[in-house]
Structure formats: C-alpha cells, structure tokens
C-alpha cells in the first residue's frame, strides 16, 4: 500500500496539485525535473528492497517449516551493496551541482527588487525606480482569520494568500530579488519561482527569476517569525514590460501623493474611519481588535496612560513614528495622514474617549 502511495503523486495525481509545482521559470522547471528524477530513483530502490524483504517475510517463516540458515556475512555482497548506492548518489549529484551553479548566477539582471521582512508584512523596494511598496495580509482574510470570527474560510478564494498591495514584475526579464529583514528572520517563498530564500536582519541574500508566463503567483513566509508567521503572504503579478512600466508610474504618483498629506485637515469622523482601517492593517495583530493586547507581550491600549493622558499625546505619536522595543517604527511605512488617523482612533476607540483630534500637521511636526 505504501508503494502505491509513494508512486501516486508521480503520475495520475500530479494534476490534482499534490506534487511540486513545475512553476513558471526555467529554473523552477529544472528543479521539478530533478525532484521527479530523485523521486523515481528512491521509489524504484524502495520497490526493489522491500520486494526482497516481503518475499523473505512470506517464504522464510517458521510456520512453513523452514530451518534457519547459518550464514552471517558475505564480503562480496557487502562490497556490491556499498558500491551501487555510491554510484547512484554520484549520478544524482552531478546534475544537482550544475543546477545549483546555474541558480547561483544572479548577474546581468534587468530589474532588481529588495524584499524586506517585517513582523508581519513585506516591504518591496524597486531599486531602479525609487519606489517602495508595503504588502500585508488583505482585510478580508484578516477578518476571517480572527479566532471565532464565525466566517467561513472556504468562501474566500485566496484565504491567507492575498495581500492588500500586490507587487508587479515584468515577464521574460531577468529579475534579481534581494531578501533581508527588519526585525527577525523571515523567508521569501513563491513556489512558482522555484525557490525560497531567508530574509535575515543585517544581511542581504540574492536570487533570481525569469518569469515566462503572465499571471498571479502566490507564496508565504516560510520561517517562523512570531505569531503572525502564517499571516504574511506574498503575491506577485507578472505582466508584460509595458504594463509593468505603466504600473510603476501609477505607483510613483500614489507614493508622492501619500508623502504630501501633512497639510490636510479632517473631521473627527473622517479620522476615525481612516484610523480604524489603518489600525486593522497595522496594529491589530499585536494589540488585538479590542485594543486589549496580549498579557505579558503586547500591552493593552485600552485605558493605557500613553493613549489617554493629555500630557502624553506627543509621546504617543512619537512611539508610533519611532517604535519601542518589540514595536516597529511606523514613521517610514505610514503617511502623516495615516499616523494622525490611527492616533486619533486609538485615543477615542474602546471607551478611551479622550475627544482628541490629531491632524496630519501635528505628525509632520513631531517627525
């Protein structure tokens, strides 16, 4: 039965998404082929060895009246079964070596992006374009994923594999992808690109991909990075070079607009609505939807002195901008408007009711 299970993924079931993906890059296809070759090799060895064993189990039984043989070694046989595995291993190591050498060559890339892992989102810098994108779990998945949300994950098509802000990459172009991290170690993995690479604070790793087929490719963080480890997906949209360039322009305009929010003046209501959105995307994972935090790790915001005392309003803003201990610095990630809104929200939600209104101007002054 085990043999059947082992062979199953190789053939018929391959189409059901049980086997490794072939992916959409030349390297991912080579990796798939290497995987299949190895899988077949071990399957055949397994069938041979276990057949001998089961033949023996069925025939060399005391109940069949056999007398046990006395032999206890045979140098010839032992040499043979040392040499054969060695030969098999060498013949696997040769193609593996050449594949690894090809993977290692990141030279002459046309587009370079840098993925930085944060607890728990990804930041992408388009190094040739002066463009930065933050991508976190989408609001829909986030809502369903709350414990006892009462919502059915079966109804969300890309549950936990969707982000609020997917990145776009051009097809048929050598793309170099650098990985690093801001806080703890993460790992950037999109199975269709054929590899994962750890994102390590203080270090920059590189890898590359040539995506051959337009489409949306999804992956996840694959190195445990705290409670949000299962909630930082990766979404890559591969499009033609022209579409890619258009997208870059649109995003650059949006980036400039977001930087320029310091003179906006909003009503309490507008700030609270905006603030709730920002809170859900950025703060909820630690401080929780009800602002109660997690005892011993993530402090509560409800009735927290820094969030309600009038004299500590600036300290509250600065902590969001610069971070503190485990709390990341949000100053670079969020616009003045976002920080103003979320500060207002935190000072008024869950019965904090300070009545404080924080405008974007106050944030740009505090920076």
């Amino acid at each position, binding site marked *: 039965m085990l043999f059947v299970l082992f062979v199953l993924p190789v053939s018929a079931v391959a189409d059901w998404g049980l086997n490794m993906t072939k992916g959409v890059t030349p390297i991912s296809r*080579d990796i798939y082929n290497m995987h299949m070759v190895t899988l077949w090799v071990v399957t055949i060895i397994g069938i041979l060895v276990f057949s001998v064993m089961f033949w023996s189990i069925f025939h060399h039984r005391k109940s069949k009246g056999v007398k046990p043989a006395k032999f206890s070694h045979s140098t010839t046989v032992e040499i043979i*079964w040392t040499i054969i595995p060695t030969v098999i291993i060498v013949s696997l190591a040769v193609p593996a070596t050449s594949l690894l050498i090809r993977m290692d060559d990141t030279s002459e890339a046309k587009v370079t992006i840098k993925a930085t892992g944060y607890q728990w989102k990804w930041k992408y810098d388009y190094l040739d374009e002066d463009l930065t994108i933050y991508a976190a779990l989408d609001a829909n998945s986030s809502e369903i994923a709350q414990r006892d949300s009462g919502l059915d*994950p079966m109804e969300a098509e890309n549950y936990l594999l969707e982000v609020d802000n997917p990145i776009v990459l051009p097809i048929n172009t050598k793309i170099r992808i650098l990985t690093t991290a801001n806080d703890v170690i993460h790992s950037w993995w999109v199975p269709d690109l054929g590899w994962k690479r750890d994102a390590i604070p203080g270090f920059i790793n590189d890898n590359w991909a040539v995506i051959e087929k337009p489409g949306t490719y999804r992956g996840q*963080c694959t190195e445990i990075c705290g409670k949000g480890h299962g909630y930082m997906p990766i979404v890559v949209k591969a499009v033609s070079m022209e579409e890619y360039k258009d997208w870059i322009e649109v995003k650059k305009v949006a980036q400039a607009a977001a930087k320029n929010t310091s003179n906006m003046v909003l009503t309490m209501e507008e700030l609270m609505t905006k603030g709730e959105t920002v809170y859900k995307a950025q703060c909820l994972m630690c401080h929780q939807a009800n602002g109660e935090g*997690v005892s011993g790790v993530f402090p509560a915001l409800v009735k927290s002195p820094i969030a309600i005392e009038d004299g500590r309003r600036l300290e509250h803003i600065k902590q969001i901008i610069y971070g503190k201990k485990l709390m990341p610095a949000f100053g670079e990630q969020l616009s003045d408007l976002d920080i103003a809104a979320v500060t207002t929200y935190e000072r008024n939600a869950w019965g904090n009711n300070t009545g404080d209104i924080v405008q974007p101007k106050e944030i740009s002054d505090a920076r």
Partner: protein
Amino acid sequence: MSTLAKDNEHDHDHKPTGLKRWFFSTNHKDIGTLYLIFALTMFFVGGSMAMIIRAELFQPGLQFVDPQFYNSMVTVHALIMIFGAVMPAGVGLANWMIPLMIGAPDMALPRMNNMSFWILPFAFALLLSTLFMDGGAPAGGWTMYPPLVLQTGDAFPFLIFAIHFLGVSSIMGAINIIATVFNMRAPGMTLMKMPLFVWTWVITSFLLIAALPVLAGGVTMLLTDKYFGTSFFNAAGGGDPVLFQHIFWFFGHPEVYILALPAFGIVSQIIPTFARKPLFGYASMVYATASIAILSFFVWAHHMFTVGLPIKGELFFMYATMLIAVPTGVKVFNWVATMWKGAMTFETPMLFAVAFVILFTIGGFSGLMLGITPVDFQYHDTYFVVAHFHYVLLTGAVFALMAAVYYWLPKWTGYMYDERLGKIHFWLSVITSNVLFFPQHFLGLAGMPRRIPDYNIQFADFNAISSIGGFSYGLTQLLFVYIVIKCAMGGKKAKAVSWEGAKGLEWCVPSPAPFHTFETPPKLTKEMLEH
C-alpha cells in the same frame, strides 16, 4: 519495618523500600525503570500538545487556540518529545540492558546515574512552568533561532536553564555508559563481541559528549545577548544571526543520530532473534554506525541551505549529506539479509522492528531528496520536512523503542505481555501513523509552510485526514499503557530465555531479572556471545 529492612540486608536481593528506593536508587534496573516511566509520561505530555496542534489544523480558520499559543505548542512539543521522551527512553533502555548484556553488576558510576535521572523532572518542571507565565511558553520553535527567540517573555531564562539541565543530564548519562562499557565487560566480552545495541549506545554517547556542550554554549550566548548586552547574534551590534544556526545545527544534526542510533541497535537485536539467524554483517554494522556518527558532524548546514551560504559551502554539505545514504543503506541491506533464509515468526517486537525498517527507510528516502540542495529550496520549511522527520523519529525511533519494550518486558516483569493486544496495538499504530504523516508529504509539495496555525483551503483535505490519523494514533497509545501495566501486574510466566531465538547474556539471568545480577563475572560460553 526497621527489623524487616535489617533482615533484608542478609537477603541476596535486598533493596531499600518505599520512596527511598526510588529517590536514592543507585541500581541500574530501578533507574532504568524510572527513565522509562518518565519517558512514557513525557510522551503523553508532548503527545497532548500534538493533539492540540492537529485539532487546530483539522480545518481552515482559527477555532481553538491563538497563533501565539499554537507556536508555543509547536515549540514545546518538539522539546518534550526529543529531550523528554525519545532520549530518556533510550537512556532507560541503556541503563537496564547494557550491564545485563555485557555481564556487569551495575553501571560504573551509580550515584551519577541517580543524579542524571533526577535532574530530568526538575528540568521539565522548569520548561513546563513557562506555560503558565506572563507572555506564554517559548514560541520561537525548538530551534530557538535569534532574533525571534529573544522576543520570548519571562519564559526565556527558564527555557535556557532547562536546556542546560537536560544537557548536563545527558552528558552524565553518556559518560556513565562509556565508563561502564570500557571497564566493566565480563572477561571474554571483547569489543567486537558486544551486542550491537551496546555498540550503538557507545557511539551515541560519544555523540552526546561532543554535541551537547556546543548547544549549551549556543544557548548561553543567547542568554547573554538578551540580558548582558552582548551581540553574538545581533547584526546591529556587529553579530551574526546565522552564527547561531551554525552552532545549533552542529549540535542538531548529531542529535538526530543520538535519537536514531540506539533505534538501529534495538532493531539489530530483535531481527536476528525472530529470524532465528545471526545478524548479517556484524562488523559492517559497527563500522556503518561509526561512519554515520562521524559524518553527522559534517552535514549540519543542510538544515540551512536557504540562509544564503556560499555555493562552495552548499556543494560540500550536499555531497556530505548524500554520502550518509551509503552507510545507512548498508544497515538496511544487512537487516534484510538477516531476515533472508531465516525462520521468522512475527511477535509484536518483530512487527515493530520490520515496520521500523520500512518506514525509517521511507524517511531516509525523503531525507536524500531534501539533501539535494537545489530541490531543497522548494522543500525547505514545508510540511514535506515535517513528514520526513516524523517518519524517521516516530515511525523510526519511537517504533524501535516500542519494539524494545515488548522485547524486554518479559525480562523486566517476569511475565509475558498480552500478545493479542500487542498485535492490535502494532497494527493500529502502523496504520494511524501513516494516515497521520503520509499526506503531509503532499501538503509540503503543494506549498504548505510548516509552523502555521491556519492555511488556505487548498490544504484542507489532507490536513483533515492527517488530523484524523493523529487523533487515532494518540488514542492507540493508551492501549500501549494498558498492555504494559497489565504485563507488570501478572500474566503468563516468562522463561529466562523469553523468546525462542533469543541469544545473549541478558537471557542467561532469570525473568524477572533479580535486583542484583552478575555480582561475580559470568563465565562466557561461545553460545552466549552469539548475536
């Protein structure tokens, strides 16, 4: 009471009574029993954590626990199963059986033996107490990678000290085994005549002595990074987070063989007994075990191919890893050749041993696949890895330990266990563990990362199947406890040679083995030295 105790002193089989017997024991059999009971208890503690994990993963969405607590379960489950269940069970067997197998009256260092056991309950009290602490139990994975592990709350120093204690305990156990085997063998029991179980434990002991101090050093560096301002692993202070991974896996890979080698030894005792035929290739078994042990110090970085090693490093570690398949293959072939042309019967120990050979080999196959660096970039940190190491550790090491318990239970208790129940336990275990772990290969290949509390619906079916296997496997093990207790209470009397084909010194003493054995060295006959 006191007169009774005095009278007993003249008795050949005298032993202290009550709690004193267990707390102050210097008797290798009592300490072995303590180890085994402790390991079984921890097997259920760690097992219940696995049940929580499988319950949460039974369907997509978050139903039972928070992600932080889920991570704690993943972390503590691994620490308990490795350091609390499999290792102490192995040491327990070594304590019970090594003196009996080499004709020694006891372990060489009996007081240290007592201490190395009694450290364990305290170490696990430290570790388990963190479940009730502010900030929760450690949740960064048993691998304790910084910087994440440094975010642990009050539990952090308890984790580090628990690891230190466990290391001290294991090292003392290892020194004791080495001292015993090299000094206390009965005259005529030369090294190359020792039973293979003794050999594997000698080699394992050297692994323990070499590997555990490295772990102790690594976790101490974590401690000073967190509390004393050092920056061993902090990039912002000029340190290197990857350095910890090198240190950890320099311990971690030999640790894998610390768990596996005694299992090899057990299976090498059991298969010849039930095949009624000597072990095939005794000498090559010893050399293969030693080669595996030596190679295990040169393959650590295959656990970290994705950290961005230089390509020369990746190639070296790939070749070294693939090389381990050769001596491991030799062992498997030897076991099959031992069965070949034997006269086999299939009592429970043999069933578990045969299942070990098949399922450990499947774990070895996925291990070879994982060792191929470019492909590992897809497998790494997915459920494929989870399936792989549970095949080698659960259907591998744990199955061998179960085989050992059934094999030697008659010698320990003086009674035969219930064979019918034993077989039921075996078949349920082998089926449920495969339902539990085989689908995880598919999950990993399809792209499910490990250590996540919730997943996309495409992974739902196999997770549900795996969970059903998990719950059934967990329940099945209650049957094992019942069988062991039933056997200890009574049953069919066991003969000194409890199995028809059993060879070796341990079968020369009565069943149950008297409290003191081999107080004068036995005169070895040729037959006693047969394997």
